[in-house]
């Protein structure tokens, strides 16, 4: 049936809500408590412990490991320093995004790649003629995210790592109790946070050590609902929700290039070649047709729609992910793919695909909203992503 993660024996008794969901064939907690609210606030005010083991993980080793990755991903891997982590998309030959994830340089000739979808075949097919061993370590590697302002303090208690010196998107090797772990200063919350990779056989030991060290710092196991809100505030896109992998798209119009997803910064066209290079170089000469943008709903306009039917504004308790039309005047100029009420910012925000002409920051648009069974439109404004970007994330 569904797989459980290596942390499941700890997670299952904590999951009082019995709200489970699937992630890459695994059963994971939507929320532990009856509401995800406290778990969300732990991300922003204390430290949340998230099981991210369902990520696909690959280890690439060999003389040509960097060359392989350079062929596949859009960023320059050869130039990455040992201990550096890159967030990157990768594309098909037409320059349409297949997946996104991280590439961590563990050594001169050794990398770890994480992805949302399986990519073994794609990596192998791209490795023809190269000296590199590709290993799917998804099941043998457990992964945890510790996210929130207290994350560093907890890891300082629990590990022997020099965390003061560990910069954003860098990694360190350390021991958590007795368990060897890789600590990567990355995350999916837009907050100060770390991701820990370790041997799945020692997952429970690691969990216990972290929970013990974090007790006085408010460590809180958090589920997917809390994470979804946090990643929305961080303006981070999600495969299958905010974009369709070119591998799964049924028609071309469902595909997106990294330039259309706001990832131009992660496409290194100066690289000699990578899959999709030619198409993206051509595309970069023009303005991208689509942009991936942040939207902020104007409170007054939202409130007025509800007042008209005798209600106070009703706000979504969790992030939604239903494609929702966005208009400029009578024309539909795009669609929002994720949205929700930010409990921290006290704003109703959304991520949207917009036609380039309507995507400039400050543009006034309208987004469909259903009020008492009727479709209405609320005023929205294009705003910069991320919505929330605390200094501690990088500091």
């Amino acid at each position: 049936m569904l797989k459980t993660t290596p942390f499941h024996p700890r997670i299952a008794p904590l999951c009082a809500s019995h709200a489970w969901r699937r992630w890459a064939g695994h059963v994971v907690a939507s929320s532990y408590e009856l509401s995800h609210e406290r778990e969300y606030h732990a991300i922003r005010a204390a430290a949340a412990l998230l099981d991210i083991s369902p990520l696909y993980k690959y280890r690439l080793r060999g003389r040509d490991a960097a060359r392989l990755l350079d062929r596949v991903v859009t960023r320059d891997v050869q130039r990455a320093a040992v201990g550096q982590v890159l967030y990157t998309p990768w594309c098909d030959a037409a320059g349409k995004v297949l997946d996104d994830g991280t590439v961590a340089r563990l050594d001169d000739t050794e990398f770890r790649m994480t992805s949302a979808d399986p990519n073994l075949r794609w990596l192998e097919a791209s490795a023809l003629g190269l000296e590199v061993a590709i290993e799917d370590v998804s099941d043998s590697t457990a992964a945890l995210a510790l996210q929130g302002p207290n994350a560093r303090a907890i890891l300082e208690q629990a590990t022997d790592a020099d965390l003061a010196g560990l910069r954003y998107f860098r990694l360190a090797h350390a021991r958590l109790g007795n368990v060897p772990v890789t600590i990567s200063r990355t995350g999916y919350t837009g907050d100060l946070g770390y991701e820990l990779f370790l041997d799945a056989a020692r997952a429970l030991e690691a969990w216990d050590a972290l929970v013990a060290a974090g007790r006085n710092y408010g460590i809180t196991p958090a589920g997917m609902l809390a994470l979804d809100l946090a990643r929305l505030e961080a303006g981070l896109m999600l495969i299958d929700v905010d974009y369709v992998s070119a591998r799964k798209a049924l028609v071309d119009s469902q595909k997106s290039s990294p330039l259309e997803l706001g990832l131009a910064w992660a496409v290194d066209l100066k690289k000699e070649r990578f899959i999709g290079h030619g198409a993206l170089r051509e595309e970069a000469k023009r303005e991208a047709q689509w942009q991936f943008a942040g939207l902020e709903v104007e409170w007054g306009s939202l409130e007025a729609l509800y007042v008209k039917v005798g209600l106070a504004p009703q706000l979504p308790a969790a992030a939604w992910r239903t494609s929702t039309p966005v208009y400029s005047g009578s024309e539909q100029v795009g669609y929002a793919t994720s949205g929700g009420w930010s409990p921290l910012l006290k704003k109703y925000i959304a991520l949207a695909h917009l036609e380039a002409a309507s995507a400039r920051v400050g543009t006034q648009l309208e987004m469909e909203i259903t009020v008492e069974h009727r479709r209405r439109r609320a005023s929205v404004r294009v705003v910069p992503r991320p919505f929330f970007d605390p200094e501690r994330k990088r500091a």
Partner: protein
Amino acid sequence: MKPYDAIIIGGGHNGLVCAAYLARSGRRVLVLERRERLGGAAVSEEVFPGFRFSVFSYVVSLLRPEIIRELELPRHGLHVLPLESTLTPLADGNYLAQWNDHDRNRRELARHSLRDAESYDEYGLRMHHMARAVKPLLAMAPPDPASLSPRDLLGMASLGGHLRSLGRERFHELCRLMTMSSADYLDQWFECEPLKATKSASGIIGTLAGPRSPGTAFVLLHHYMGELDGVFRAWGFAKGGNGSVSAAIAAAARSFGAEIRTSAPVEHVLIESGRAAGVVLQGGEEIRARRVVSSADPRCTFLDLVGEQHLPGELVSAIRRYRFRGSSAKVNLALGELPRFTCLPEPGAHLRGAISISPSVEYLERAYDQAKYGEFSRRPYLDIVIPSLLDPSMAPPGKHVMSIFVQYAPYRLNGGWTDERREALGDTVIDTLAEYAPNIRSAILHRQVVTPADIERTLGLSEGNIFQGELSLQQMFFLRPAVPWARYGTPIRDLFQCGSGTHPGGGVMGASGRNAARAMLEEGV
């Protein structure tokens, strides 16, 4: 009395579909079925007291969604229960299962090959695109590319436009599918032997060809059509057996005013001044009609019911060359208990789907080798379902029925089919199955074996071919059953064909019956 607008010869599913569409358009229609029951090869019979069998065809996979919708078949009693999985037990006690649930399927495939687990989705997507590419052809009266008639030219123009719209990549892929063997095609995608074998099996069903025979890849696609119309999911088992598919279509036809007579065997088509004027039943009764439609297979229609003396010599020789070569048999079992597969002995979801004895491509190819030389396979390909697990009304409480499709059992068996050879085939099937589920012998309460010779004798399907002629490329589309008579007409005025022996043919699909009715209505019948 006012003559009928149309007489339909044969109350199989295509005859009934054709009758329903004609009646729906206000035509006065009579269906004549030779047997005492309707349905042709889509029948449910209580062969053994308390146990009901879909004696011949046994699943619903390809029935056209537009027929279900237009004839309102659910209102007339059609209920398709989904088959959830395909289990391929292996000799070493392992197994390969394919599940409807994506995550469960991926996990199971990854147990055999991580690469195949990934390819599986891409293969499914490719087949989706290919099935979409071919789908418009199904509802089309196939144009003859060599003809200069305006109708054929228009048809070819629309077809050409369609093929161009596929784009280079998909057009090339379609060409590969049309020419390759299913084994070669699947080798491009997968490395896991039981997966390739189980998938390639759908390319050989009903055809005297092996998975390594060129042209079988295209049949893979034919079988993918059933999975195309996501909303309908008409891939499963009809509650009450496949007889209830026929019953639902018959009820729809009657609701539109069609008359249906059983035990009414047609002796020949009445031909007067070069046109069909009605039929003569065995026993001499003459029934007149403005049009006659035969749902019998091409050999039976042209050579038996019409007679060569009324036909152009070219057509007669084309029909004589048209390949039937029935190659499959059925074994129906009444069971006192469920089979216990060595790989998964306990009852479970794996028994609620198809069970495929297809451990490797080589296994299937060897099975074919023997059939090529006139023997039934010593270790045949089996496609098994246990309908009573989906629909308990098929068997007494706690008991079960098992339907086993067997390939290869060639019609032209060395020495011919006899009662002894039939039972020998039954023994071979049980021996094969017992290698994977040893309790099967003691579980059997009753066994029915149906050979191609039985299919021919009981249903009138020539050489026992379940598709009214092989689904091989040389007799598909505008070549089915013969040029230039692939658009449901015949050289005899007012005589039409609507059986599986016409485009697109094959499976409980109903497209031939619907297309024929539409072609007739367009001609102003």
